[in-house]
């Protein structure tokens, strides 16, 4: 952590006071059917929105770090989206985050990964957070790339799929899930960390949290407010173009076996017939 951001704070204490930015996204309710708007080729977001579940893990992790530091520091939520995204962000505030910053601008609509990472990086640059947390992916588009793009733009180290995170001595140390176990990765702060859902069991907001969330600062900023060029955001700033969209292919015919005691033999016969065993 650079000393110039914490003037007047004694050295020892400085390592404890952190500003943590958590990038969050409003996604359609997991229970609802996902629909694509054929004209815009974008996800239809008209229904109920919710905070992306992986981001809830990221908010939880940020709050735990803050609480472990004697509740000192700040947790700020950052998002890019329509104004209604503030409703989902309020859940993060209700959990305990201190304030929310939503970049919402008609010119930012339809941003792809490149354009989104640009706008988010611009917003994050204003905050100069010591730690930037992401959920590893959103459960609407499941890209799992945004944190890498944002880290690249901010020229910060990045750790992905963190299943455990420790902050000490100006460093982030994370256990990174791999196919065969864990990598332990360390990065000097400020850094970007994308957390997996294995990292914690998120709290649910208390009634006081929900009531208090309304009173917390919630800023809606335009692209101009964050110093972003309109031409680099939204569709104009996107480098990818969706050409066509199709529903997932049907799974084909399936055979349902009711277990009357012979299910195992029937499954075996099915596999043998197809020379799979």
């Amino acid at each position, binding site marked *: 952590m650079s000393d110039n951001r914490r003037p007047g704070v004694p050295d020892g204490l400085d390592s404890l006071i952190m500003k943590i930015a958590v990038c969050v996204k409003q996604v359609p309710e997991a229970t609802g059917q996902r629909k694509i708007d054929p004209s815009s080729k974008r996800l239809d977001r008209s229904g109920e929105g919710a905070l992306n579940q992986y981001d809830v893990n990221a908010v939880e992790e940020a709050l735990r770090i803050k609480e472990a530091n004697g509740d000192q520091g700040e947790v700020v939520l950052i998002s890019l989206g329509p104004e209604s995204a503030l*409703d989902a962000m309020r859940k993060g505030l209700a959990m305990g985050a201190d304030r929310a910053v939503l970049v919402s601008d008609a010119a930012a609509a339809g941003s792809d990964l490149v354009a989104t990472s640009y706008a988010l990086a611009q917003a994050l640059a204003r905050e100069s957070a010591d730690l930037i947390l992401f959920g590893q992916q959103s459960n609407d588009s499941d890209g799992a790339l945004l944190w890498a793009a944002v880290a690249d733009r901010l020229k910060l180290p990045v750790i992905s799929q963190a299943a455990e995170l420790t902050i000490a001595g100006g460093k982030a140390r994370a256990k990174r899930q791999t196919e065969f176990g864990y990598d332990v990765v360390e990065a000097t702060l400020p850094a970007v960390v994308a957390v997996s859902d294995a990292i914690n069991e998120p709290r*649910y*907001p*208390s*009634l*006081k*949290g*929900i*009531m208090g*969330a309304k009173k917390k600062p919630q800023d809606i900023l335009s692209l101009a407010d964050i110093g972003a060029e309109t031409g680099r955001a939204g569709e104009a700033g996107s480098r990818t173009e969706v050409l066509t969209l199709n529903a997932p292919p049907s799974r084909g015919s399936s055979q349902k076996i009711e277990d009357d005691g012979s299910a195992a033999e029937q499954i075996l016969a099915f596999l043998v017939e197809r020379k799979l065993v």
Partner: protein
Amino acid sequence: MDFTFDPDLEEIRTGVRDLCSKFPGEYWRALEPSTYPSEFVDALTQDGWLAALIPEQYGGAGLTMTAASVIMEEINASGCNSGACHAQMYTMGTILRHGSDEQKQHYLPKIASGELRLQAFGVTEPTAGSDTTKISTFAEKRADGSWLVNGQKIWTSRAEHSDLMLLLARTTPADQVEKRTDGISTFIVDMKAALTAGTMTIRPIKTLMNHATTEVFLDGVELPAEALVGVEGQGFKAILGGMNAERILIAAECIGDSRWFIEKAAAYSNEREVFGRKIGANQGVQFPIARAYAAMEAANLMRYKAAWLYEQGQAHGSEANMAKLLASEASWAAANACLDTHGGFGFAEEYDIERKFRETRLYSVAPVSNNLVLAFLGQNVLGMPRSY
């Protein structure tokens, strides 16, 4: 009428659902037949849900009756049971409305934080059921202003899980008062002290459902002068306001139960196939569910009206009672439709239907019998002769 979607209420619903998701059917089944859901109640208390109606100045959330009722509704709609703790939300209302400043300062913050549980309400007696003025538990005023209480209460729910009891006792014998509602006083009883002194005995009563109800024996319970809540002899009126709040909240619980039953029944009727088609295609299955839904929606309107009147400080007694009547009838219709739809499976514990069925049955009888609600409407609203 304004039926605009209220985002604040929706946030409360989501919050309660999130909490309740940690207490699924398995949790409740494991408590049967008579274990108190301490973990569930602790979680609700810790997160401030049961302090919804306590003003902010005393550490509560200071929510409206509508919002408080939404909490109860959502608990029951999530498959959980508010009956274990709803009284912690409203019993304090008597202290809030009739207590002295000292009593409010002393008790309300501790009730809000959960440090003190006030969820036992000693009213009913073995020989005085709905006819509350016939209670014989007597509090005798002693020379130093303190009180000596003797008597017995029954159907005092959660007494074993409460630190305080709001107690209704005669302080003037019935034959010495002008109106039989006079001469009854309300007290706040430190149950732990009385139990330690051996002057109070609590005996659990096993019931149809897991409700932690008891009978309480008061054998020379000593209460300090400051245990009196409100004006001596005017306790009956003091508790009436609280009873109406209770009825609105319980109506909301019944709405929650109805939602749970109807959702479950409709889903199963769309899934289960018998005789080569979904059972929901049979009007004999479909119509009772649809009828229960209509009854629930109608009851819900009365529940919101009663809550609104309460919030406006207007007379709401008959609406609170009608809401409880209609909502308990709707939840019972929904419970039966759900059980019928599931056939034999509805009786199996693992579906939770039989448990919810038993739980919602209570509300046709308690906290006031539906027949007494009808009698109240007939006599007090419609001016017909007293029927009892």
